[in-house]
């Protein structure tokens, strides 16, 4: 088992390096971030001096090597725009996103698992059709449009819920206030991923129900309920684990759009502003962080697989 984990870790390292290389070189195509500083009041000499200070006058390979060397020591450079360490900027913004993503993940699974399993067990029933159709239509709604519609109804029309930020400005922090701010963004995020999850769990469950061991269980005459609860559900754990892994990149992408609409002060908002400002070190930091999170999620998924399913050979 430990060998298996080590092997998976070793495979992840070249992928991670590949990501940083891809990242760095694509960004070098973007043109010089110094262009953003050019103005009538800045002399050419000042620009060159600043470029030399930031190491931007060196060849791209040297720049990448320098970045990599520093990154190994935990130093991801300083944001061009805000003159703060990238790690610190990310650290400041990570909690709101984790809160948003974590809650959305849990809620969407709490909805998708029972709905998907119910739908599969009662295949071709009216409820099944309703669940499948709803999930189809649900995953066809652009999340930002849903977000706008929610703001329109619950904030502008009804005035029930706040629509931006994490807290009401000028008031002392309180749990209920933050929770009220979370309703809309979390709601939209759950809605935008739950449809895909339901369909995935339903499809996997249907596949499980066609297996020979379930036919055997049915043939034993132990009753439908026990067949499903004892034999089918246990095997449904695998697709559920898969979904957890699949969710992470989806939620990351979703958070960029949703944080933008709701001014949620998290990583998505930071990412968007770093992209608009061509803030290289910050873009590198955010992409690397997200890639690491995704890789870890994949790794954990694989390990959980090996634990849950004894037929998987981990050598």
């Amino acid at each position, binding site marked *: 088992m430990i060998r298996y984990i080590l092997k998976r870790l070793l495979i992840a390292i*070249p*992928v991670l390096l*590949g*990501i940083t290389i*891809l*990242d760095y070189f*694509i*960004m070098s*195509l*973007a043109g010089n971030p110094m262009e953003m500083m050019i103005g009538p009041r800045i002399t050419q000499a000042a620009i060159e001096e600043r470029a030399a200070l930031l190491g931007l006058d060196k060849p791209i390979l040297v720049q990448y090597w320098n970045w990599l060397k520093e990154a190994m020591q935990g130093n991801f450079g300083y944001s061009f725009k805000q003159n703060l360490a990238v790690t610190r900027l990310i650290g400041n913004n990570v909690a709101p996103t984790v809160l948003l993503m974590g809650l959305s993940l849990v809620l969407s699974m709490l909805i998708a698992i029972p709905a998907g399993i119910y739908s599969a067990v009662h295949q071709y029933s009216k409820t099944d059709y309703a669940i499948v*159709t709803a999930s*189809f*239509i649900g*995953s*066809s*709604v*652009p*999340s*930002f*449009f849903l977000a*706008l*519609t929610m*703001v*329109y109804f619950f904030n*502008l*029309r009804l005035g029930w819920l706040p629509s931006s930020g994490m807290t009401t400005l000028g008031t002392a922090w309180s749990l209920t206030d933050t929770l009220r701010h979370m309703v809309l963004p979390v709601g939209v995020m759950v809605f935008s991923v739950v449809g895909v999850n339901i369909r995935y769990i339903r499809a996997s469950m249907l596949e499980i129900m066609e297996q020979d061991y379930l036919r055997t269980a049915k043939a034993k005459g132990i009753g439908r309920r026990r067949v499903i609860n004892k034999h089918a559900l246990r095997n449904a754990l695998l697709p559920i684990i898969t979904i957890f892994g699949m969710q992470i*990149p*989806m939620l*990351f*992408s*979703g958070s*960029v*759009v949703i944080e*933008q*609409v709701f001014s949620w002060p998290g990583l998505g908002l930071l*990412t*968007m502003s770093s*992209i*608009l400002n*061509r803030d290289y070190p910050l*873009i590198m930091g*955010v*992409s690397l962080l*997200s*890639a690491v999170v*995704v*890789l870890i999620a*994949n790794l954990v998924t694989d390990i959980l697989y090996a634990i849950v399913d004894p037929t998987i050979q981990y050598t």
Partner: protein
Amino acid sequence: MQQATTAPGLDRSLAERISHETYYQTVFRRFRRHRPGFISLIFLGLMLLLIAVTPLLSPYGPNQITSAFSAMPSAEHWLGTDQVGRDMLTRLMTGSGISLFVALLATVVSTLLGVLLGLAAGYFGGWIDIIIMRVTDIVMSFPYLLLVLVAAAIFGPGMWNIVLILGFVNWPGMARLVRSNVMSLRGVNYVQGSQVAGMPTIYILFKEILPNTIAPVLIYATSVMAQTMLDEAALSFLGMGVQAPTASLGNLLNVAQSYTILETKPWMWLPPGLMTILLVVAVNFIGDALRDAFDPRNLQ
């Protein structure tokens, strides 16, 4: 089609007809039975027709500025006008056309890439497979939208760049699908027979293996197209996609970032949003119908 000839009560001439139809006739007949899918196909066809005739029927150009600013829907402007006085209905139809065009083209790009790379990885195996699959892993372990946004920021937003960017980030799923299909087809007797007979690799790949993976590729391509439409909308909404004055469903929604417009001028943002949903739902349903139609277990 054992059922077609033995099912009691089935019209004999119908059974006769079914047993003589070609593969694609069978597929189409099954497709028609999927009601949401068939309705979606008609709806999409109708929309394409409307988009095509909009320049002929509409008294306004898509970027033409009239004297009515932010006008409510009226007899002259059925869906009202935007803040600079352009007719919303004309822009909605033009924008739908652009969005469909971008999504279709990006889907074609990613499908071609995915199919070619998947064929190569699955058929040749070895280090070709290892390299292609590692690259696939790298592209897939990026949060998708982040990659697209970074690329859009770098290459500059704009319609053609968006087509290429969305096309170039969407192929890994297709490549994996084709690869696994090819790997199972590689062991099939007729392929091995051709290999033994010394048929050229190109012939085996494109005349024997590819036609047998067309069904899953088509089905997967519809889901890529639906996803691409949503992504184009999101990108243009964030201002990183199709650029004004060219209309697209996403950048028409851009104005709704202002709360005043969101609150008081719903005609500016509701129709493009609803249109996006309708089009994406239609594409998704068509994919679902294709899945049923191509499914060999489907005995209808």
